[in-house]
């Protein structure tokens, strides 16, 4: 701690920070542009100037940039000093010399950091009366809009895009007041995190192009805290709505999870919510007309629920919905709707996590790793935000030397000069090149089984007690020793693995390495990528997979099969799914969009998406996090799955709930029934939580048009919808102060209208939110010492001339079903292909682009060839889960024939 004097008042602050961070943490309003809490200081914009005095006798002082000044004991500075204030105002005047007067038509207006800072410094009158410089804007793809004239040259975009996220195609060009931030030529931004430019940019140069298509000012959005649904990491987001349409996703700071950034799939994948393909009414196939009201539906359903009813849960539905289904059908009739291999892998992951042999890191913790080993994951495509964290770990590792020459950790510019291109150790074993390879000290392009064997060999090197790998090739042993040595030396090693390659042995091997690395305080970190947003939650409910061969005998021939938010036809072969569906007399599907499974249903019940429902998800690290309904849909049929299912249970039992069932009630019951969910009820607050007797508003205090927005239908203002399920209200009324962190509907503070206001919600800049970061970690190590997962070393991979090993290759855009329905993402998704290496292409006598017949279990696909020279022999990569390539039962083998 250090005592500093700001305008002669002493404050105790944390040492090691810079003065700007200290001032902001203390609640002072000090303007800034180039500094960013995640990216540190470069001292370029000169906006955060304060007067610094030598001691308490010094009255003259000198101007310094507070972001470049280390906090130290007895530091005297002044924010209110007239020279400092005049200078800060002058900086704004400089920046404004070329900034257009287009706030009224700028997408950033109302949530613009530049507007806020301009008001803060008091600059109002311009003395510059010359022509402003203008630029040509670039086409940057369907997701990001470019408007260079607004640029104030803070360099944040290139610092984020190039330095932080590793992008190659955005840079700064030209010099003096003509510098240009963009690509060398027009084109789609290639980086997975380009959407963050819209938040990193302090003004309207980079904006969300999907928002532009249904533009709404921040102050006119109804917003709710939410959780991203498009991978397993559970990034915190804010979802905003107006006129019954979901309009924007922005990052919601969670210091333990996503921090300040989310990926483009998460930011731009929301548009399926507004799809015309949404199911709008309950549908009964045998009824004329098919669309029915609730009474007819219930009348029709009542007899169907009394017989043998089987429920199929979903890895993309909330805990509440899955649990409500389980309650309806009974424990033994509840199955999980995931492929068999996935279920097997999830079981292994759970048993590893339950032993407590490894440390399950949050994403924040992964950034502190000094050596990283990635086994069988292409993180940029399967869990993008984690790739960004791993990048930081590798990038920041050599920074330790900075301490030795007194360069503070926040001094980004100096750190980068010092570190140059040095990186921490990172090893990646994956069949094809991944984007993180450029950071890696070792890359191994090998087949899934070989990845597992490499992993086991490393484990055996680290702990001779672990079983040795038979038949190990010499070079593989060498790699294992190299990686093992590096891991052994590491203070904080991280192993990353996952389910992407559909190979359970890889996960076992990764766990074996982590377990061999250390115990107690020296436990190694093991991060695991799982398929969907609630895969972990569903797996923790311990229901067998519906596709499991033994499950079929349990199912028998049910009267009714209820399928919850799950397109079964996308997860396995049509024949296998049909066999299950054919067994049942009635099929009820609850989902938001029509899909092949709903096409087979007898009864379809429309349900709300994440923006129309409350729920709790468990992410890949076992963190239970709540998401909240954003708006009450006009269509009363779009109800939460758990609400429908609770109603169905009452319908069958002939009961009624005395009170409204809330998500908290469901989670509490879940935790009572299954101890592994103990604590999850704390993630979802009770509906009657009030702060100073008030609910928490979803709408900002400046929400406009409430009395007029429906005037074309009815001149009287409609009664605002009430929310009986959560402590949030659907209006602007309610408690205006700091809310508990999981209930932050938006970040907004007086004078800070943009997302930069987040520091007002943090206990210290860049630290945890007030009341702690949202989410409750669930794993509590119930089975210590069980190492059975370590067995099962696969035999050596032998290229098979006939039977090719098919490798599922995930794609950021395209491999996740719901986001792929968004227009921009669909545009950027790859076309189907089959990837093989050059030698194999030669032996098949095909070139890049030739058509190959790919036959998997009798199903034939005609796909163009893509040559990936690094692929192991006789393996063929297929883009995972593309709309055109669903229904493959993984792991898969197949034949390739020239077409």
């Amino acid at each position: 701690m250090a005592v500093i004097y700001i305008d002669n008042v002493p404050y105790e602050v944390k040492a090691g920070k810079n003065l700007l961070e200290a001032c902001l943490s203390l609640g002072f309003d000090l303007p800034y542009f180039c500094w960013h809490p995640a990216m540190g200081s470069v001292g370029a914009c000169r906006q955060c100037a304060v007067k610094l005095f030598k001691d308490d006798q010094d009255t003259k002082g000198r101007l310094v940039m507070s972001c470049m000044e280390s906090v130290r004991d007895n530091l005297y500075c002044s924010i209110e000093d007239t020279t400092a204030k005049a200078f800060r105002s002058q900086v704004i005047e400089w920046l404004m010399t070329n900034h257009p007067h287009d706030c009224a038509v700028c997408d950033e207006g109302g949530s613009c950091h530049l507007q806020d800072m301009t008001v803060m410094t008091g600059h109002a009158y311009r003395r510059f009366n010359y022509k402003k410089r203008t630029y040509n804007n670039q086409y940057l793809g369907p997701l990001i809009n470019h408007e260079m004239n607004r640029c104030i040259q803070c360099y944040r975009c290139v610092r984020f895009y190039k330095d932080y996220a590793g992008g190659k195609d955005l840079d700064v060009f030209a010099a003096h007041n003509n510098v240009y931030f963009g690509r060398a030529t027009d084109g789609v931004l290639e980086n997975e995190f380009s959407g963050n430019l819209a938040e990193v940019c302090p003004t309207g140069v980079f904006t969300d192009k999907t928002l532009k298509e249904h533009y709404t000012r921040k102050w006119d959005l109804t917003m709710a805290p939410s959780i991203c649904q498009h991978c397993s990491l559970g990034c915190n987001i804010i979802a905003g709505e107006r006129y019954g349409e979901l309009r924007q996703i922005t990052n919601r700071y969670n210091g333990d999870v996503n921090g300040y950034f989310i990926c483009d799939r998460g930011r731009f994948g929301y548009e399926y919510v507004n799809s015309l393909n949404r199911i709008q009414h309950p549908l009964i196939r045998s009824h004329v007309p098919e669309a029915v009201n609730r009474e007819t539906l219930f009348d029709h359903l009542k007899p169907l629920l009394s017989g043998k009813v089987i429920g199929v849960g979903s890895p993309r539905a909330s805990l509440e919905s899955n649990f409500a289904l389980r309650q309806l059908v009974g424990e033994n009739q509840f199955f999980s709707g995931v492929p068999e291999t996935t279920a097997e892998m999830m079981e292994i992951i759970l048993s590893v996590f339950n032993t407590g042999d490894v440390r399950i890191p949050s994403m924040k913790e992964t950034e502190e790793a000094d050596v990283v080993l990635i086994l069988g994951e292409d993180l940029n495509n399967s869990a993008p935000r984690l790739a960004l964290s791993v990048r930081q770990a590798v990038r920041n590792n050599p920074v330790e030397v900075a301490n030795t020459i007194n360069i503070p950790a926040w001094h980004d510019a100096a750190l980068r000069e010092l570190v140059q291109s040095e990186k921490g150790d990172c090893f990646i074993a994956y069949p094809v090149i991944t984007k993180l390879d450029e950071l890696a000290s070792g890359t191994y392009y090998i087949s899934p089984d070989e990845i597992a064997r490499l992993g086991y060999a490393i484990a055996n090197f680290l702990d001779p007690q672990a079983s040795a790998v038979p038949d190990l090739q010499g070079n593989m042993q060498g790699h294992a020793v190299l990686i093992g040595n590096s891991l052994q030396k590491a203070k904080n090693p991280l192993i990353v693995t996952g389910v992407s390659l559909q190979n359970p042995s890889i996960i076992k091997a990764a766990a074996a390495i982590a377990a061999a690395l250390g115990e107690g305080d020296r436990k190694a970190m093991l991060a695991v990528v799982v398929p969907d947003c609630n895969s972990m939650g569903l797996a923790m409910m311990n229901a067998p997979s519906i596709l499991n061969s033994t499950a079929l005998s349990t199912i028998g021939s049910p009267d009714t099969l209820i399928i919850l938010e799950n397109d079964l036809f996308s997860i396995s072969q049509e024949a296998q799914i049909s066999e299950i569906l054919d067994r049942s007399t009635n099929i009820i599907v609850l989902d938001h969009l029509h899909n092949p499974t709903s096409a087979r249903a007898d009864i379809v019940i429309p349900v709300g998406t994440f923006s129309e429902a409350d729920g709790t998800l468990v992410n890949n690290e076992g963190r239970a996090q709540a998401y909240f309904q954003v708006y009450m849909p006009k269509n009363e049929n779009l109800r939460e799955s758990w609400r429908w299912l609770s109603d169905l249970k009452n319908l069958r039992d002939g009961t009624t709930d005395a009170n409204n069932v809330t998500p908290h009630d469901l989670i509490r019951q879940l935790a009572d029934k299954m101890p592994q969910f103990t604590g999850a009820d704390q993630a979802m607050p009770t509906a009657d939580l009030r702060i100073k007797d008030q609910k928490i508003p979803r709408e900002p205090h400046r929400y406009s048009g409430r009395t007029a927005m429906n005037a074309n239908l009815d001149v009287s203002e409609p009664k605002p919808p009430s929310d009986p399920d959560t402590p949030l209200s659907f209006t602007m009324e309610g408690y205006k102060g700091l809310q508990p962190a999981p209930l932050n509907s938006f970040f907004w503070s007086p004078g800070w209208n943009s997302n930069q206001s987040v520091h007002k919600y943090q206990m210290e800049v860049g630290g945890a939110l007030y009341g702690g970061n949202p989410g409750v970690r669930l794993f509590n190590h119930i089975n210590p010492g069980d190492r059975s997962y370590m067995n099962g070393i696969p035999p050596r991979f032998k290229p098979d001339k006939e039977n090719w090993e098919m490798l599922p290759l995930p794609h950021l855009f395209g491999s996740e079903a719901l986001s792929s329905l968004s227009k921009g993402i669909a545009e950027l998704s790859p076309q189907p292909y089959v990837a093989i290496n050059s030698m194999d292409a030669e032996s098949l006598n095909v070139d890049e682009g030739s058509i190959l017949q790919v036959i998997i279990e009798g199903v034939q696909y005609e796909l163009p060839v893509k040559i990936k020279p690094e692929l192991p022999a006789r393996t063929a990569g297929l883009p995972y889960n593309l709309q055109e390539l669903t229904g493959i039962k993984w792991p898969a083998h197949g034949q390739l024939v020239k077409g």
Partner: protein
Amino acid sequence: MARKLLLEHINVPGIHTFDVYRKQGGYRSVEKALKSMSPDDVVEEVKKSGLRGRGGAGFPTGMKWSFLAKPEGKARYLVCNADESEPGTFKDRYLMTYIPHALIEGMIVSSFALGAKTSYIYVRGEMMPQIRILEKAIDEAKNAGFLGKNILGSGYDLELYVQPGGGAYICGEETALIESLEGKRGNPRIKPPFPAISGVWGCPTVVNNVESIAAVVPIINDGGDEYAKVGIGRSTGTKLISASGNLNKPGVYEIELGLPVEEFIYSDEYCGGIANGKRLKAVVAGGSSVPILPANLVLKTVSGESRLMSYESLAEGGFQSGSMMGSGGFIAFDEDQCIVRNTWNFSRFYHHESCGQCSPCREGTGWMEKVLHRLEYGHGKMSDIDLLVDVSKKIEGNTICPLGDAAAWPVASAIRHFRDEFEWHVSNPKEAMERNYGIGNYADPLPANEVPVAN
């Protein structure tokens, strides 16, 4: 004739070749240093000599060298800053063109002193002929065993590289030069950390001007104490001055520091007076970035003493009535020159050369340029003059690198000393387009304090 240390043999035919240079006693300092001195001895001699950086700032070279960090297992670098591009300065180019081995010799001795195994000469990209000359000189020195492995059997290895500059004035700023040398965009770095701690490739680095490095040769040959005897006070040794403007004999002169300015301008040994029999109006004494001084203040200080060509004397009077030695770019203006136009011209240069990193310089230089353009072309307002003062004052001292100061000083000083001429441009715009203001009544030795501009 004053004593010459750098250009003593400049008129010897073929001095640019190794053989002739060697015959004239060249590379003696390398032999002396490598054979009979330790690196610390060399640093000590340079410290004793009182040599001050010849690039502009005038920081003692020996002290700069002694700040170089020497961590275990890390390379150290010497970089010669030959990115000479300040308007009015052309002394390094002269030296490199005509006596390149003086620089190579200095580089070897200096690198030895600093323990650098690899050294770079970063030459302004436009100076392609000089780059070729230097490369040829390096080849010759290498063939003669003065570069490469185990130089003169001393066990000391040195590789010397010439790096063509990135084409921007800012790359002459030492940290921007390092960035450019590393292959990056030439934006200055924030100090600290100083290059002496974290410079090229994050390693300890010394960046010295061409002339400073060349001056190490006579220091080692004659000894630091001997060198310190030349010059006056803390301005020791000789200095190359590139004289330009309305002079009878513009060119590069080696002067002994302490020479009276009047003698430098008017004596036949140096510039030979003002051309065409005109009167001297003003002088920019050290390259375009230093404050401009009216004739009376450049010849005599406020206290009436004769102003000398030395770091101290030129700076006497501070910003009110003094200037700076700078890089030795001496520009003389006769009575027919327009100060407003000249200030605009300088401003245009600094605007163009601003790297665009920090706001005051990026936006401020462009704004000053626009205002000055307007004043010069007869559309100015009286308030523009105060606006210029205000903007220049807010730039000064508040930028990452000294380019901001360099852009602000000429404007601020021109208005300080020639305000009447600026006002005349506003009040007589038509006349200002047709004729010059002439010598004017700038002769007030200490103008009244400026009215402070309201914030």
